[in-house]
């Protein structure tokens, strides 16, 4: 009786082992008249919003410019990392390269996912476009990385400069307690204190915690002129800003300054009146006035009814860079040649003119100072001051 059961059990197992092989075995064949772009990003899980914006931005570009360049059809192969999962990202990159035989890698909403792919991109000489991840060091990890998004210090330092120039001297910083948060805190403090300002207090809030009350209360009790904020987009800015309003910090004369991640376009209507008047620095606002942005918004609306944000523009410009490379190389993609084209490339982006730095392969762009205003029934970050052609100060 028992041995019979064991035998059946064993058979079942063998069947599983064989099917493992079968499923693994399906591979995509490369076709010569297509150019494949493997997009590795966060399509599900808590960061699904990142992937959605990046991919839809990329699709918007293809919607606007057609899917054929230099006689080749461009195909997106989208892979989901499920969140911050560097092991998955690396595996997906490897499969995209050896099985799907892609010509470009792109995407990467989160830093660890990009970092894990660096050795593979180098080994396979695979041109890789970072469409969002913002930690400074990323592009130094592989000579085949190029970034079209932003770096955190790049958008943080202008905030410090602006704050000082506009008379703020005592600022309390509040950042999410993780690597990027620490980086933002350091970048702000460095510039602000160098100019003569004073950081009167620093708070770090846990990533996974809905309660900002105690931190906000502490800041209110210490009565600075302004607070500088960096937290991850998602529920944190909303909870933070509501808490700021509720506890009357605005009335107490404490101005809220932040990077644009906190004042992300997609959240503005969810925040409503709460965010009115808040100042932030970032590279893109959906309210940016330019023909390029108008065209982008129109193309994006055909893909996604929701408002695009800076990540969408990252996806959009990433595709623009890829299209440029394909055009220049006339459809014959080679890693080193592609990187040569990318280095120094200029693009007229919806956010304004941008360039990929020839030496660091990192983004050079304008950073705008914006204020939240109500425009035509909706809430937007309205740009009113520009820091022109900034490089990543982290390098």
């Amino acid at each position: 009786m028992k041995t019979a059961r064991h035998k059946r059990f064993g058979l079942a197992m063998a069947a599983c082992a064989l099917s493992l092989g079968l499923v693994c075995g399906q591979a995509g064949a490369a076709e010569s008249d297509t150019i494949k772009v493997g997009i590795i990003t966060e399509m599900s899980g808590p960061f699904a919003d990142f992937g959605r914006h990046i991919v839809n931005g990329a699709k918007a570009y293809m919607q606007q410019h057609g899917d054929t360049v230099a006689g080749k059809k461009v195909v997106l192969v989208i892979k989901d990392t499920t969140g911050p999962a560097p092991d998955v990202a690396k595996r997906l990159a490897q499969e995209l390269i050896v099985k799907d035989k892609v010509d470009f890698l792109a995407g990467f909403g989160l830093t660890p996912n990009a970092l894990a792919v660096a050795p593979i991109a180098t080994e396979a000489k695979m041109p890789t476009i970072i469409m969002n991840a913002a930690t400074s060091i990323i592009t130094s990890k592989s000579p085949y990385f190029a970034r079209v998004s932003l770096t955190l210090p790049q958008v943080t330092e202008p905030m410090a400069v602006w704050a000082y120039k506009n008379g703020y001297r005592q600022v309390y910083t509040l950042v999410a307690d993780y690597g990027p948060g620490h980086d933002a805190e350091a970048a702000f403090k460095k510039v602000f204190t160098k100019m003569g300002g004073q950081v009167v207090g620093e708070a770090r809030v846990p990533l996974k915690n809905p309660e900002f009350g105690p931190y906000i209360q502490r800041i209110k009790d210490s009565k600075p002129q302004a607070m500088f904020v960096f937290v991850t987009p998602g529920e944190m800015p909303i909870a933070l800003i509501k808490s700021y309003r509720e506890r009357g910090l605005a009335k107490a004369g404490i101005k809220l300054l932040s990077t644009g991640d906190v004042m992300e376009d997609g959240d503005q209507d969810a925040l409503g009146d709460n965010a009115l008047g808040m100042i932030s620095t970032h590279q893109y606002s959906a309210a940016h006035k330019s023909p390029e942005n108008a065209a982008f918004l129109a193309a994006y609306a055909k893909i996604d009814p929701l408002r695009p944000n800076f990540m969408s523009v990252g996806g959009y410009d990433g595709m623009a860079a890829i299209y440029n490379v394909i055009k220049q190389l006339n459809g014959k993609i080679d890693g080193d040649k592609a990187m040569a084209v990318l280095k120094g490339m200029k693009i007229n982006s919806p956010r304004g003119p941008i360039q990929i730095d020839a030496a660091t392969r990192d983004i050079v762009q304008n950073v705008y100072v914006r204020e939240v205003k109500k425009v035509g029934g909706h809430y937007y970050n309205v740009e009113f001051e520009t820091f022109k052609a900034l490089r990543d100060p982290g390098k």
Partner: protein
Amino acid sequence: MHSLLGVLFDGLAYGSLLFVISVGLSITLGLMGFNNLAHGVFAMAGGYLLVTLMGAAGLGFLPALPIVFCAVALGSLVLERTLYRPLYKSTPLIQVLLSVGIIFVATAGANFMFGSGQQPVVIPEWLGGQLSFLGLDLSRYRLFLMAIVAAITAGLVFGLERTRFGAKIRASVDNQRMAESMGIRVDRVFQLTFALGSGLAGLGGALGVDVLGLDPSFAVKYLVYFLLVVVVGGPGSVFGTLLAALLLGVADVAGKYYVPQFGAFIIYAAMIILLLLFPHGLLGRRKSK
């Protein structure tokens, strides 16, 4: 002294929020013994329903709340009949698997229907801002939450301890066969209990949107908090859940105010310590075998 009182108030308010979103789970887990990790799904449903009612249907915040409670409770009955009931007598692991499946479906469904971003909710003017009382600035919405918590606790304690239905629940929980032989329709009682728990989850989700935000991963993001409060309190005990929620809330807020550098650790450390001191929950009943 002044800040101490303020911190205490904030802690109790935060605890109230934890209570509101968790008490439903305490009922399904403690009274029915069903390991429903998908509790957050009902809370999330409540949140989305509130947003839809207030946005598309143009309903006010207050009138929307009872509708949310009833709608989620009714909706849960369908799930109870089709998915949960067949597994009442199953092992906890299978129940966990089922609830994980439900979480996956709900997460993807919400993503599909409402998008991956945060949902807006505008609480009425009179609930916004702060109220000055004896020199303390008290948030109106938090006061409102505390009032709701008091009402729910009173209602539940009265309902479970003093009414016929409560007696039936307790009888069914203690000894199913005995209850059946006494003429209690145990399946009906469980059904209503489940609906009650889910309705409360929905209500909690709706009340929580303003503070916690709302996106498709809500059910997973706060799963740990539901479990934490319920297990520390002792599953099935309304007072235990309340006590645990308030204790953890005050510990967390006070910790963050006074030692902000340990902000992330406090609530977990508090949980571990409380569970080591009270392995069966603060007011948990030892299950007699």
